[in-house]
């Protein structure tokens, strides 16, 4: 089981239409450090685990801040947080993980859509503090639905542009691109159409995206494979209709899991051999794979379990 940190919900407040922010204070002392772009798993009382980007100040080791939008098609995560969580509730959270780290650059453009602002908030602060040119274009449906607008405008008013898409349409990314120096980095987090537009506009090597939802893709039919667990010497059969994560879990290996759809990274497994077929939206680093969705191209994978 992955290491969890005990926190107490210190503050919960509606900050925009359908959005609450939560302050989770370490119950037994300082919380694990994190870098801008990081997220945590939050274990909810209804057994669901959900991932939320940290949007507070990394220098504050006593508390994490997250913000949650109530998804009208909620499966029970955001709905539970909005309706039932009250101040004083204890919540276990994971150590922070970061698939969206801020890489040094001579200029940054941040693109955020709706609740996708959460990882961008601390990134913008850190980038601005580094002294290079930064700008944020932040789109939301209408002013009432846009969280953190006041905070952003008071801290970074000169570099922040907030676009209410209902009145002004989507921001023109091509115009933004032409205003950037060619070696600037672009960080984008938001709904799927915004990510797609960013991917169509900016060169891949200059663009970093963070997804809350998996991309819909089609794959060749699943084939069976074997997972050789190097540490224990056991071999686990993975049938076509079972994920590597489930096969390992059922064989007694306690691999943690979160989203189960290749976006959160909880189920990262160290790969020692074989050809993986990556199906995640994180971009697995060399020698790692995400067992919830990814499978094998070779008949056998060797994993560090």
């Amino acid at each position, binding site marked *: 089981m992955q290491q969890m940190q005990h926190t107490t919900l210190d503050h919960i407040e509606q900050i925009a239409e359908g959005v609450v922010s939560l302050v989770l204070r370490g119950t037994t002392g300082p919380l694990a450090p994190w870098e801008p772009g990081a997220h945590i798993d939050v274990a909810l009382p209804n057994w669901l685990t959900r991932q939320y980007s940290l949007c507070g100040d990394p220098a504050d080791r006593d508390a994490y801040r997250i913000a949650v939008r109530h998804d009208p098609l909620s499966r*029970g995560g955001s709905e539970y947080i909005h309706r039932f969580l009250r101040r004083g509730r204890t919540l276990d959270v994971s150590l922070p993980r970061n698939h969206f780290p801020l890489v040094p650059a001579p200029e940054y453009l941040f693109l955020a859509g709706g609740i996708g602002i959460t990882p961008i908030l601390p990134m913008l602060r850190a980038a601005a503090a580094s002294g290079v040119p930064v700008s944020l274009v932040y789109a939301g449906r209408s002013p009432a639905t846009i969280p953190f607008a006041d905070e952003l405008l008071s801290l970074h008013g000169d570099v922040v542009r907030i676009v209410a898409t209902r009145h002004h349409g989507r921001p023109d990314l091509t115009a933004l691109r032409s205003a950037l120096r060619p070696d600037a980095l672009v960080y984008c987090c938001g709904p799927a159409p915004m990510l797609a537009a960013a991917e169509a506009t900016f060169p891949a090597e200059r663009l970093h995206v963070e997804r809350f939802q998996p991309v819909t893709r089609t794959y060749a039919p699943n084939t069976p494979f074997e997972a050789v667990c190097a540490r224990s010497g056991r071999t686990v059969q993975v049938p076509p209709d079972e994920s590597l994560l489930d096969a390992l879990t059922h064989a007694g290996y306690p691999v943690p899991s979160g989203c189960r*759809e290749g976006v959160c990274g909880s189920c990262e497994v160290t790969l020692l051999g074989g050809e993986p077929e990556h199906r995640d939206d994180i971009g697995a680093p060399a020698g790692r794979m995400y067992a919830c969705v990814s499978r094998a191209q070779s008949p056998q994978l060797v994993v560090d379990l």
Partner: protein
Amino acid sequence: MTHAPARPRRMSPAEVRARLGEPEAMIEAKIRDRIDDYFRLFIAHAPFLTLATADASGRADCSPRGDYPGFVKVLDDHTLAIPDRPGNKIADSFRNLAENDGVGLLFLIPGLREMLRVNGRGYPTDDPDVLARMRTEARTPELAIVVEVAEAYFHCGRALVRSRLWDPASQALAEEIPSIGEIAAAQFGLDIDPGLLERTLQDSYRKLY
């Protein structure tokens, strides 16, 4: 001299009412016609319910439904939706609902004595917005049962107190029952290793969705 055991005497409805007395007014008043915030809170924490249906002739059926707490979705103050997870495909509930849409639900929360009862009318749906809210382990159910709520009320906990249902010591009762593999082998007169049946069943429990 031995007699065949007599069939127990059948009472008339009037006799039953006379024996039990009239229900207290408070009990009647607790029945509500909608899902209020407390019922919503209860449903959001309930991982288990029983679903009672009957066919047109009155042939009745009661089936269990269970998942993570809150697996039953409250669509609005008058409407619930229950996911249909893979089961035995007998689909008694759906067959009954096609003839007779009356449903009775009893929700349980582990550790809590009081129960929630909801009665109403049910029908099957494949509405994608309803099913999307029920996706678990990257699988979406094929169907759900929508329940239009007519009555909802908390049921007092006497049955659970008397049954010691949540007392961990009560779990010793399970040890008195042979494994379902042994029972199945005996009931169906199968010449098969009960251990193998048991392992087959255990394997089927690995795939819950």
